[in-house]
């Protein structure tokens, strides 16, 4: 007998697909969500007796559509667009598998439309494609639930009233629009990296979905590879006390080999296309780290070369800082310190952590202590603060450095 957990699994896996199809049927996001939620509510009462149907997604979509059509027929006051939807989609039309693929892609581009505020894009994507509840999203982003609910309502109203289209952008617009989509997924991943691991899992799921829907876009593959390779290190990232363990000191036997293998394979596959973008290059940097059996065996020359490439396609002070870390390994701490001192990242804790480490390696212990203190003050999480405090008081000998992979650059 199928239990409740099965239905939850189906919900997480199929909610986005069902909403996407229903949005196309109905031309209305709210109505689509209600219909899909209705269908899942029905599943909760039916499936424990009847068992999970062979095609749960098909069952949910058909049920949701029938519910929506019944409802629209009852509510004669609905506008002409809905009446048309009822007329176009007879309740016994079979669910189409082909267009379903495109429906989800359409919905992602709608959720991540540049006319929406970035926070609204993140919330909509998690809500409509991830099936996360308003409460879950609000918790993850430390926003009061009513604020987040309001943000979702406004975004959906703008989609409807401003006429944000429900379609995949034409080829000429795709590079721009795709980068907005990738940025949303990566933002979700980064948020999870420092707060809630469930968000990382969701981001990886969305990354897999995008890679499945757009197999020919190397940056899509690159982003998925990047997330998998960073996620692979999660088990080794904190010690038993919850204190951050920096990359060079991590117990590499605790890294998730399956994720690393998959990530590396994806890196190779997308780089073969010869169109390296920022996500592919960051993924490649992480692949080099994952290749090294020990921290000492890390191929820093290759990493430095990749940072040079990253600076060429997506220069930023954070990338320059991470490049300086690689330079310290190949040219020594003095050269790196000159670079770091030229960067304007005063309130960025990683800058101070890197600087402290370079000073320590140059034997300037007193200055290093001050810098570790500054880094600890600015650190966003307790795990990082605890780690930097340990360094400041000279407990533990290894060295921190900017996480070469993580754009936020926290010292993993």
């Amino acid at each position, binding site marked *: 007998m199928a239990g409740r957990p099965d239905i939850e699994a189906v919900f997480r896996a199929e909610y986005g697909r069902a909403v996407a199809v229903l949005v196309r049927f109905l031309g209305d996001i709210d109505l689509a969500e209600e219909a899909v939620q209705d269908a899942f509510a029905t599943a909760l009462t039916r499936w424990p007796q009847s068992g999970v149907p062979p095609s749960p997604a098909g069952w949910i979509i058909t049920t949701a559509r029938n519910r929506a059509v019944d409802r629209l027929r009852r509510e004669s006051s609905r*506008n002409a667009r809905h009446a048309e939807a009822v007329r176009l989609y007879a309740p016994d039309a079979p669910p189409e598998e082909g267009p379903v693929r495109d429906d989800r892609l359409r919905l992602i581009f709608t959720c991540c439309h540049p*006319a929406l505020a970035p926070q609204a894009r993140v919330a909509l994507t998690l809500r409509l494609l991830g099936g996360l509840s308003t409460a879950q999203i609000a918790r993850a982003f430390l926003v009061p639930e009513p604020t987040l609910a309001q943000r979702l309502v406004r975004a959906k109203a703008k989609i409807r*009233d*401003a*006429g*944000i*289209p429900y379609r995949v952008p034409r080829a000429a*617009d795709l590079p721009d629009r795709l980068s907005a989509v990738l940025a949303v997924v990566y933002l979700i991943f980064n948020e999870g990296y420092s707060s809630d691991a469930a968000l990382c899992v969701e981001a990886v799921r969305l990354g897999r979905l995008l890679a499945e829907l757009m197999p020919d876009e190397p940056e899509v593959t690159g982003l998925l590879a990047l997330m998998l390779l960073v996620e692979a290190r999660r088990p080794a990232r904190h010690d038993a006390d919850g204190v951050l363990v920096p990359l060079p000191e991590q117990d590499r036997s605790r890294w998730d080999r399956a994720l690393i293998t998959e990530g590396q394979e994806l890196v190779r596959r997308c780089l073969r296309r010869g169109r390296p973008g920022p996500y592919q290059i960051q993924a490649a940097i992480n692949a080099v780290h994952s290749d090294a059996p020990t921290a000492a065996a890390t191929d820093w020359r290759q990493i430095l070369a990749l940072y040079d490439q990253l600076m060429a396609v997506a220069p930023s002070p954070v990338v320059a800082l991470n490049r300086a870390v690689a330079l310290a390994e190949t040219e020594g701490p003095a050269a790196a310190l000159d670079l770091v001192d030229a960067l304007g990242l005063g309130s960025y804790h990683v800058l101070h952590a890197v600087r402290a480490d370079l000073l320590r390696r140059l034997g300037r212990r007193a200055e290093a202590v001050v810098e570790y203190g500054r880094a600890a003050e600015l650190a966003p999480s307790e795990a990082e603060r605890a780690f930097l405090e340990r360094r400041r008081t000279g407990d533990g000998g290894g060295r921190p450095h900017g996480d070469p992979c993580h754009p936020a650059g926290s010292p993993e």
Partner: protein
Amino acid sequence: MKHYLLSVVQPAGGTPPAPEALAEIMRDVEAFNDELRAAGAWVFAGGLHGPETATVLRPKDGDVLVTDGPYAEGKEYLGGLCLIRAADLDEALEWGRKAALATTLPIEVRPFVDQH
């Protein structure tokens, strides 16, 4: 088809462009209007005199009060507008993008309430 208003956002108190630059902008704006007409998207377009030419009429106790000056003083004002027909926001934004390049000024794109 939906209707969208493209508003030209003009900075207040700025120095106007030099005559040659202005002539080029006017040519670009005219070319933009021609393109709108050719595409069947043109409804209406026009520039506005400055806010110092504005008069505000305010209802008061069944009467109407006439005052000199704009309704609201601001760092920016409405410099002109263009009313277009477009299938959706993407299409309207594409026209807005062209308008921004032609006028060299920020353009606000807003949908009209649907008319049924």
